[in-house]
């Protein structure tokens, strides 16, 4: 049967091209793979190969013709014994794209945002632990280790890998005692190769394990970010749900003290942007423990952003056998009617100090600790803003494209009519972290800046 040879699309964007040269003539026999013609586009000249075998019955487009649209018949391939004349009056050029009609009809509906939004968001305000629960004092460091160790006791696919996690007992002593308890098979020292060991961790997760990958700090995870995003976060989607990377990437994030620009970045806003990742950034020890246990059990890749300055800080931790904190549930540290202060991680320190001082001036701030940034409990923020009508966000990261920017846009879109003042984002300064003590102090966020912002939005 005679078949038409169509002008091929030789690149994703090609719409038309020049049929530069025919390398076969009418009557020639071609086999699959033989080069038949040279096609020229604005980018390159490319060879066009035969797909089927047959005889060139007729050449429909002469060489040198410019502007030949993709899918235009350019020649006719016949089989032995057929005549090219039989197919003289051939079909018109095929349509350029296949699904025009369907595409147009389907475009606007399901994917769009619903226009009716609840005026009062549904918020989970249940307490984190039952009333009357016994509490113990623990540092963030101890709480983190307990969270990991408890999960490793119950699930033997969980293991910890990273630089200095085993024999050194953790560069920041987070994994103290874990090598002794779990042995070198499950607490694994790696060479200093973040890109490589992050990739091995993701591969191990593909293979059915539950790795905890420790970065000595998240600054070094930039060497591994391709695996975190392209390999871990996107695979579940790219595989149509067949496989993903259930694992935790953890380590200290943000500024420590006097370590300069390359060791002092807050990555909250970066990771929060990625669909497929979950992002936790706790403040209190109980949340470090409860969220770490939830992160290890979660079937998705979780970014767990810790803070070196908080590691030694002591908090109350509920003395329960299996204490977990759900993702996407903010914690209200302080209730108030005058202004909502939203923060997370070490930013909470400034938020709470500012709230204490503001109370002395008669301003009652409601302080919200997001605890996880993705999923984010925007309902808790909106509910509070609908009460206070004012909001200040607090974070150590840079201002442009910050977590606060996102929160501001959510409030503007969902609670604009409730706002009595513009939302202010308190952030770190828009500079690489300087080393000099005085400059570093100015680059960081201060409690006074939070107080000033609150006074601005409350017009005091």
């Amino acid at each position, binding site marked *: 049967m005679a078949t038409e040879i*169509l002008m091929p699309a030789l690149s994703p964007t090609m719409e038309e091209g020049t049929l530069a040269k025919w390398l076969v003539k009418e009557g020639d026999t071609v086999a699959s793979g033989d080069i038949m013609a040279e096609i020229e586009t604005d980018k390159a000249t490319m060879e066009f190969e035969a797909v089927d075998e047959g005889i060139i019955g007729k050449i429909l487009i002469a060489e040198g013709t410019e502007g030949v649209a993709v899918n235009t018949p350019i020649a006719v391939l016949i089989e032995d014994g057929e005549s090219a004349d039989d197919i003289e009056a051939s079909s018109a050029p095929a349509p350029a794209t296949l699904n025009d009609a369907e595409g147009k009809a389907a475009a606007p509906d399901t994917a769009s945002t619903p226009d009716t939004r609840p005026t009062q968001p549904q918020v989970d305000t249940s307490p984190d632990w039952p009333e009357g629960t016994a509490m113990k004092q623990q540092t963030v460091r101890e709480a983190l280790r307990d969270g990991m160790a408890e999960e490793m006791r119950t699930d033997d696919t969980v293991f910890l890998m990273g630089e200095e996690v085993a024999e050194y007992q953790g560069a920041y002593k987070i994994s103290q005692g874990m090598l002794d308890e779990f042995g070198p098979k499950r607490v694994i020292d790696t060479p200093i*190769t973040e*890109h490589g060991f992050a990739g*091995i961790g*993701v591969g*191990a997760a*593909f293979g059915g394990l539950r790795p905890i990958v420790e970065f000595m700090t998240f600054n070094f995870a930039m060497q591994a970010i391709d695996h975190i995003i392209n390999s871990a976060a996107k695979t579940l989607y790219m595989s149509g*749900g067949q496989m993903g990377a259930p694992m935790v990437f953890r380590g200290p994030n943000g500024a420590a003290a006097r370590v300069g620009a390359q060791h002092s970045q807050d990555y909250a806003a970066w990771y929060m942007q990625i669909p497929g990742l979950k992002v936790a950034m706790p403040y209190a020890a109980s949340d470090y423990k409860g969220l770490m246990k939830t992160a290890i059990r979660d079937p998705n890749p979780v970014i767990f952003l810790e803070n070196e300055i908080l590691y030694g800080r002591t908090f109350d931790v509920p003395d329960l056998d299996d204490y977990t904190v759900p993702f996407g549930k903010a914690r209200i540290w302080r209730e108030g009617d005058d202004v909502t202060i939203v923060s997370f991680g070490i930013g909470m320190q400034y938020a709470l100090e500012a709230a204490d001082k503001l109370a002395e001036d008669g301003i009652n701030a409601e302080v919200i600790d997001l605890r996880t940034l993705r999923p984010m409990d925007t309902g808790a923020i909106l509910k509070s803003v609908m009460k206070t009508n004012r909001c200040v966000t607090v974070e150590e990261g840079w201002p442009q494209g910050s977590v606060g920017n996102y929160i501001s846009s959510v409030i503007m879109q969902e609670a604009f009519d409730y706002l009595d003042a513009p939302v202010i984002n308190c952030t770190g300064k828009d500079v690489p972290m300087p080393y000099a003590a005085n400059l570093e102090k100015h680059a960081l966020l201060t409690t006074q800046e939070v107080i000033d912002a609150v006074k601005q939005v409350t017009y005091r």
Partner: protein
Amino acid sequence: MAARKAAKKPNVSAEELKTYYRDMLLIRRFEEKAGQLYGMGLIGGFCHLYIGQEAVVVGLEAAAKEGDKRITSYRDHGHMLACGMDPKGVMAELTGREGGYSKGKGGSMHMFSKEKHFYGGHGIVAAQVPLGAGLAFSDMYKGNDNVTFTYFGDGAANQGQVYEAYNMAELWMLPCIFVIENNQYAMGTSTKRSTKSPSYWERGAAYGIPGEEVDGMDVLAVKAAGQKAVEHCRAGKGPYILEIKTYRYRGHSMSDPAKYRTREEVQKMRDERDPIEAVRSMLLTGKHASEEDLKAIDKEIKDIVNASAEFAKESPEPALDELWTDIYADMAPQTA
């Protein structure tokens, strides 16, 4: 390929030889059809064909057992067909349809099959190398004797993460076979213009990893090397490197201007070293198969490929709801 030792009398049955012929032919015909569908606008984006390299995956699959894993780059159609994935599902993924392995959400470069232990299809050059070492890590951790075939090209072989993975693979004795498919061109850059050292497999020595160079146009040579590598890994001796010298007849992707090598070079390879022709001639001269037998195989393959193309054209586009599924495991579909 001077280092290659003279081939011993092949230890292979007529049936096996026919199977290799069939499996290689399936890849070639499938890829030719994919090229055709691309030209028709049914396949979009990037599409990297495997034509010319068929003996690599078919030879190595002949050395694998159930449970072994494989992972590769974006030139992945041949690997999927060789490990037994359904041509219909692969082709329908290429056309971005619901019946594709990733429901149309992955495309040519991103396909997976848990059932066949195929872990992708990765679009970032060399990312699959540490991932493959990680898969091998998971088997070592579980204490079974599975191995992982980690494929990458001569282009990827210059990436730093390959050597990070080599170091840890040997340090932890991971059962990982690093397969360098050296087709001599990283996109349009010949190995001579990118790499000073003469061979890639020898770099393993710096990490204590043994390896060898293999004639990738000879499916039996590939199989024999694969068996040796597999034996090494299964015995708990750590990773192994196979640098398989091969050649791709087509461009790097469909939009390849082919200005970096001569047409004569490609033609010479096709005429003199074609892996499928070699097996075909072995079958005929050894009287293991008649022309009729081979014609029947050709016909069978043609039917399979045509059926896969029909399926790929007729399978519907994914429902728009699919935009919001599979972002998180065990969670309701996301919404705006």
